[in-house]
């Protein structure tokens, strides 16, 4: 990376063909990912979002590192007390520590965001790759199905599904509450990922190396996994990172509407929902969870955009 002239030459791939083309060992193999990393590591926005991501992940994994308070311990007499030295973010309606609840809320939000994204990538990715590879009726089937799902407004779809399959009267455990929300987010979100995967694969499919692989005896399985997928990964990866952020926001929206997560799960969305009515008397109980939520969404969106910019050859 030290010599720009060398890099240029390598990228362009031109050079005297009869040259004894022996690279020095310091010239490490340069792939798409090595290039991407070289660009990423020079961008402050990448490092900022990475540090924030690590913080949020630590919060989700080990909340006790950040606070020694019990998020469920309530002192009703302190209800809606403002920030103080004792409780930095003050107390909520039921006299629970807002800071502790913000910290513990990270887990539900991130688990829901990440798992829903993984499921979305799986559903949308499979549909997109199969549709693009086999074309014809397979493609039409997945595309039309996706358009039907996309035709339903996101929040409306959420209200309908969550309102029917998860009535508030029953009280399942935390895991079930989260699983239902994850499922709904993925079921409503997969078509967008399918379109991205589909267009990426369609583009890769007509490259000469896919033709060449076929000519040298590769079967469909090998072509999909060794040629199409590795060459379509970049846009899928970028979009999924951004999706984690938007799913965390969507989870909060559903929770705010009373159909997403609910106690005993601790989440930012629930905290915001519980305190919207008290915004004039005690804004802190709603404001701090909202700030955590926004920062977390921002982290994933920023990270996704940093990666997208780094993968864009036009910006090199």
């Amino acid at each position, binding site marked *: 990376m030290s010599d720009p002239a060398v890099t240029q030459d*390598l*990228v362009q*791939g*031109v*050079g*005297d*063909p*009869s*040259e*004894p*083309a*022996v*690279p020095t*060992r310091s010239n490490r*193999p*340069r*792939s*798409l990912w090595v290039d991407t990393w070289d660009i990423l590591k020079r961008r402050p926005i990448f490092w900022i979002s990475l540090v924030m991501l690590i913080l949020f992940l630590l919060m989700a994994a080990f909340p006790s590192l950040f606070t020694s308070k019990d998020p469920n311990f309530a002192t009703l007499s302190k209800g809606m007390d403002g920030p103080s030295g004792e409780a930095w973010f003050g107390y909520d309606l039921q006299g629970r520590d807002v800071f502790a609840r913000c910290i513990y809320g990270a887990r539900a939000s991130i688990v829901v965001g990440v798992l829903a994204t993984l499921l979305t990538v799986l559903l949308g990715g499979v549909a997109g790759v199969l549709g693009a590879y086999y074309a014809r009726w397979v493609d039409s089937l997945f595309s039309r199905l996706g358009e039907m799902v996309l035709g339903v407004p996101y929040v409306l779809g959420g209200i309908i599904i969550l309102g029917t399959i998860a009535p508030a009267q029953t009280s399942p455990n935390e895991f079930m509450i989260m699983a239902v929300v994850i499922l709904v987010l993925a079921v409503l979100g997969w078509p967008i990922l399918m379109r991205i995967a589909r267009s990426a694969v369609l583009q890769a499919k007509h*490259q*000469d*190396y896919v*033709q*060449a*692989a*076929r*000519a*040298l*005896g*590769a*079967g469909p399985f*090998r072509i999909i996994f*060794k*040629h199409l997928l*590795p*060459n379509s990964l970049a846009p899928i990866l970028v979009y999924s990172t951004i999706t984690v952020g938007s799913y965390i926001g969507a989870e909060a929206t559903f929770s705010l509407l009373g159909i997403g997560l609910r106690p005993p799960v601790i989440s930012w969305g629930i905290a915001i929902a519980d305190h919207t009515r008290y915004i004039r008397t005690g804004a802190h109980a709603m404001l701090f969870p909202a700030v955590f939520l926004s920062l977390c969404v921002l982290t994933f969106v920023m990270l996704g955009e940093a990666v997208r910019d780094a993968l864009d050859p036009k910006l090199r």
Partner: protein
Amino acid sequence: MTQVLSEHAAGGSHSGALLEVENLHVEFHTRAGVAKAVNGVTYSVDAGETLAVLGESGSGKSVTAQTIMGILDMPPGKITGGQIRFRGVDLLSLPEDQRRKIRGEGISMVFQDALSALNPVFPVGWQIAEMFRQHRGTSRSEAKKKAIELMDRVRIPAAKERVNDYPHQFSGGMRQRIMIAMAIALDPEILIADEPTTALDVTVQAQIMGLLSDLRRESDMGLILITHDLGVVADVADKIAVMYGGRIVEHAPVHDLYARPAHPYSKGLLESIPRVDLKGQELYAIKGMPPNLLEMPTGCAFHPRCPYRRDNCVTDVPPLYSISGTRDSACHYWREVLDDGSR
């Protein structure tokens, strides 16, 4: 693969050449109409033999090759007739999984632009090794060792050091060598090279041609060399098939064709090669445009551009007249053309 084929060619009764294309017809169904890309092509290649298929863009030479390989996109492509026999077995009637086994092991192919024909996200050594891993189930380390041997065989300097490099780190000529290494990895009996030197510098073209020719001799492969450049085939080819408008218009041993072409189109091609002894004169060019495949001219497809044209050329499709045991020409007036000779 050998088993597959011997089952089909039970008794080994076939007496023809290793690969025979017979009366092949391929069409493309497009929105604008039906494009007849290949209209009755017949040629054959035997072990150790080099056939050059010559023709301009749209003459059907690449489509024929893709049909032999079985990598034609269908649709829009459609094979409407003919046979492709490999060791006497008609490939077009084989099921896909058996054809796949023949690709790479029996018949292999080198593409025009090696940069786009190599997967950009994997090291070249990995891609060559993949040939052994996928067809032979060779272990990872053994396959890599074989990849290095192959890179040596196609004369890539410092193969051991470069085995982990990516395609874009190689020059054009070196990339084409890697593509060739992949194609010959499993010792195919037939190698199809589709314009292997078109994307390369003139000096490198000769090297790659030399390499292909050496490899053919070493392993007694049949080589089909597809090109639009008469200059590159003179030294390496045994026989030559000139294609125009999806048909073979002349078929001849390479030296006969160079000495005395028997079709006005081949004659025109030869005369458009710049020559030192004709320096200062205007360079000859074949007048007019290649035929529109959607609307083929009636009669002989070459008649709108032909200096020998008579009235019956517009109406009668010329058959492939046999001139001698080894030569054919699809021109009603081949005698005249032959007698005129080349300039």
